[in-house]
């Protein structure tokens, strides 16, 4: 689509295709193309799905708390653990990372928005459509039950005759579109739109990690797209990709899924690595130790993540040479990860550490992820892995990585950037309750699973008989899971209480943490145009270097207050892209296509019409609203007055709006 966009009627509305103007109220949210609002939408939506996925987790733990559990039947249990995995991976961690990427990435590179604001809105709405589509399957009584990995041929029509796996296939296909669009958009944004002076090696580590993640998405999503298409064609049109009777190979699915699935693991963890690489230096009062090593180890993880997928398949009979090769590569990938952990520790070493809640969560990541990483190394030893496969040891491992690594890092980000987004701090006192309840509950829940796994308890079973020695630790883990839930509840209470308290308190000021990177040049909360004027970057941690300098004795002294350095957000002459209806309309079409493919093809028609209408709307809406807020920035070389701008509408102004 992008290539035909420039054909849009220049400057003048065409019939119904005017652009919306209302930036307020619910209309403002639906039509917004502002990366900050889209970031908030991602965050809120993902937290709602987090509630759903969390309830599913509690149901699992209730069922397994005692032997011969009767809370869920076997069939429901399959659906619940499948949807728990799918929800937490695709609808919670990935969009939460997208929330941080959307809100902070343009700010950290000093840009006013992403390269393609409308595509950005589209990726959010398509993600929401996919998430709702997946969860609607609960209401229609046929939700996915084949595990988040959906191994074919178990998920083929013979063994999964219901519509559950169709929801899985189409739901992930829809969210995949969202991830792909967002990845392309953010890559172009980082590569093309950095503020003057910001070379790639002056970008914050967080920006780097998000960039690496977008490349992983760019190349990993099409692989699962292929796998899902093949399975869809098998199920819907009788193709033979995974039909062993005709010579179809069950391992094909496993290979395709894990070629996507292992980079996906790094897609989940690297944003969190980025977040704590900003949090730890700020609260250690030191620059990040070994910046180039941090960047290159992140890139190395991105590359090596493509060469380890078959360690998920050591017991599937791939042969001794493959097993040996993937054992080696899996051991090697621990090296760049270890480099990161050592660098975080070296950053803290000798620093004046402030134990804020954000810093506590960052400690949580470093310690918990190290445990998860070490149990990961035990999987790379193939003979040991053969014993661990499909036991609770694996469940323990990946929860230490994804909960202990990704989710705790995201919570660190919440506490750190809350003032940036909402203009007030979260309560540190409630935050400490939040942190300690979560970390204690987390270790109570998933720590014992190592023991259960080594004792031989299989994962994915809906119940176990008494007398195997599983009773105590299962009960213990279930109690732990409810402590996690209490911790999350503390976070929700904190959000509400802090917002209430903020009404009676003075604003938080521009720089509550004495921070380092570019986003803190803007006032809190960030104004709609981000920067009053673009920032000339001379060094890594530019914001910090404008506040501090060395005196004649080489001691670091404060040379400017944050108020002197920060912009006041008063610029009013900034050109902003107009909102648009079409991303929402297009996204609304996708679930209809999905329902059509599941039930009857007729339902595809309204979906296709919506998408088609949106494409035309997208192309034909004026690239800008001629009556909307207009004007150019003072130091913009193409600056000219309004009359001139409108007389040249066909030329200059039409080109100025980012056309995504």
């Amino acid at each position, binding site marked *: 689509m992008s290539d035909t966009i420039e054909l849009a009627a220049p400057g003048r509305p065409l019939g119904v295709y005017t652009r919306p103007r209302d930036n307020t109220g619910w209309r403002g949210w639906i039509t917004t193309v502002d990366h900050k609002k889209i970031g908030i939408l991602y965050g809120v939506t993902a937290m709602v799905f987090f509630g759903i996925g969390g309830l599913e987790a509690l149901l699992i733990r209730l069922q397994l708390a005692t032997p011969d559990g009767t809370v869920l039947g076997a069939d429901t249990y399959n659906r619940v653990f499948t949807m728990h995995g799918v929800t937490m991976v695709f609808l919670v961690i990935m969009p939460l990372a997208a929330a941080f990427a959307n809100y902070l990435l343009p700010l950290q590179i000093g840009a006013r928005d992403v390269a393609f604001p409308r595509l950005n809105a589209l990726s959010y709405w398509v993600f929401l459509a996919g998430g709702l589509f997946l969860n609607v399957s609960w209401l229609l009584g046929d939700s996915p039950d084949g595990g988040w990995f959906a191994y074919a041929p178990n998920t083929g029509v013979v063994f999964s005759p219901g519509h559950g796996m169709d929801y899985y296939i189409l739901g992930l296909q829809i969210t995949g579109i969202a991830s792909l669009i967002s990845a392309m958009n953010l890559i172009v944004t980082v590569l093309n739109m950095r503020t003057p002076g910001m070379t790639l090696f002056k970008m914050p580590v967080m920006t780097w990690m998000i960039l690496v993640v977008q490349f992983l998405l760019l190349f990993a999503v099409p692989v699962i797209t292929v796998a899902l298409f093949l399975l869809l064609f098998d199920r819907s049109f009788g193709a033979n990709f995974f039909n062993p009777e005709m*010579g179809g190979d069950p391992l094909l699915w496993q290979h395709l899924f894990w070629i996507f699935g292992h980079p996906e693991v790094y897609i989940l963890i690297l944003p969190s690595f980025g977040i704590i690489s900003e949090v730890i230096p700020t609260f250690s009062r030191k620059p990040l130790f070994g910046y180039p090593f941090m960047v290159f180890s992140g890139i190395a993880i991105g590359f090596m993540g493509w060469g380890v997928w078959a360690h998920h398949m050591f017991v599937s009979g791939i042969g001794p040479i493959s097993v040996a090769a993937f054992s080696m590569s899996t051991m090697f990938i621990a090296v760049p990860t270890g480099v990161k952990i050592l660098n975080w520790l070296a950053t803290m070493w000798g620093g004046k550490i402030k134990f804020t809640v954000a810093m506590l969560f960052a400690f949580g990541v470093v310690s918990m992820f190290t445990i998860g990483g070490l149990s990961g190394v035990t999987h790379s030893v193939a003979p040991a892995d053969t014993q661990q496969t499909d036991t609770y040891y694996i469940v323990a491992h990946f929860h230490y990585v994804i909960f202990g690594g990704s989710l705790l890092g995201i919570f660190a980000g919440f506490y750190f950037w809350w003032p940036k987004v909402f203009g007030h701090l979260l309560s540190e006192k409630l935050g400490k309750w939040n942190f300690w309840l979560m970390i204690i509950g987390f270790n109570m829940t998933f720590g014992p699973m190592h023991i259960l796994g080594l004792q031989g308890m299989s994962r994915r079973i809906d119940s176990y008989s008494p007398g195997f020695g599983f009773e105590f630790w299962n009960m213990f883990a279930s109690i732990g899971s409810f402590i996690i839930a209490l911790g999350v509840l503390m976070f929700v209470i904190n959000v509400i209480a802090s917002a209430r308290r903020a009404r009676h308190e003075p604003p938080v000021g521009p720089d509550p943490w004495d921070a380092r990177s570019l986003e803190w040049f803007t006032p809190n909360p960030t104004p709609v145009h981000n920067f009053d004027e673009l920032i000339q970057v001379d060094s890594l941690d530019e914001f910090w270097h404008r506040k501090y300098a060395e005196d004649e004795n080489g001691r670091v002294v404060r040379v400017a207050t944050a108020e002197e350095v920060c912009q006041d957000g008063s610029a009013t002459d900034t050109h902003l892209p107009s909102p648009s209806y079409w991303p929402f309309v297009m996204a609304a079409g996708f679930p209809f296509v999905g329902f059509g493919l599941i039930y009857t093809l007729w339902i595809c028609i309204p979906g296709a019409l919506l998408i088609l209408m949106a494409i035309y709307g997208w192309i034909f809406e004026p690239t800008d609203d001629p009556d909307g807020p207009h004007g150019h920035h003072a130091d913009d070389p193409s600056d000219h007055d309004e009359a001139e701008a409108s007389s040249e509408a066909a030329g200059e102004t039409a080109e100025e709006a980012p056309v995504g």
Partner: protein
Amino acid sequence: MADVAAVDNGHGTGTGLSNNKLLMWVFLGSECLLFGGLISTYLIYRSRYADGPAPGDIFDIPFTSVSSFILLMSSLTMVLSLSALQRGDIRNNRVWLLATALLGSLFIGGQVYEFTTFLREGLGYTTSPFSSAFFTLTGFHGIHVSLGIVMLVSLLIASFRGTLTKERSETVEIVGLYWHFVDVVWIFIFTVIYLVPSPTS
């Protein structure tokens, strides 16, 4: 302002490419993995033809060579149309755009003919893993060519509406990137499916 500069044919962007052009390059990078997955699937299944026709029995290599040649020539006409517009030659730009779209359509016509012939000879979509993989891979490529034709026709419409001017030649260039990519992918697919000796029953 970065986002202003970014659309101005790449002046002042980090890479020197405009946002739109870079987006297309990035998208094509992703497409490599899509076709990579489909081609790998075909390579695994090319000798698993169950009770159906084997690939070596059914392919008409001279016919497909001709249609491949037609598709490759469309890349040449695509380049000619871009170069015409960059010189400001609107008329030749339209002629070559039309030629590209027609050559692409000819290729798609050849594919439809090939598919129906195979179907008549007993190679259906559900016949064997080989048949499923063959139709899926070539079908995905055919859909890509068809979307390219839609883009070319859109460019022609824009040209007749008067909005496709010399200053906007980058739009043609971006569609050209897509078109050349689809051609290059076909070279791989043609080699893998037709030129590598196929098993016979």
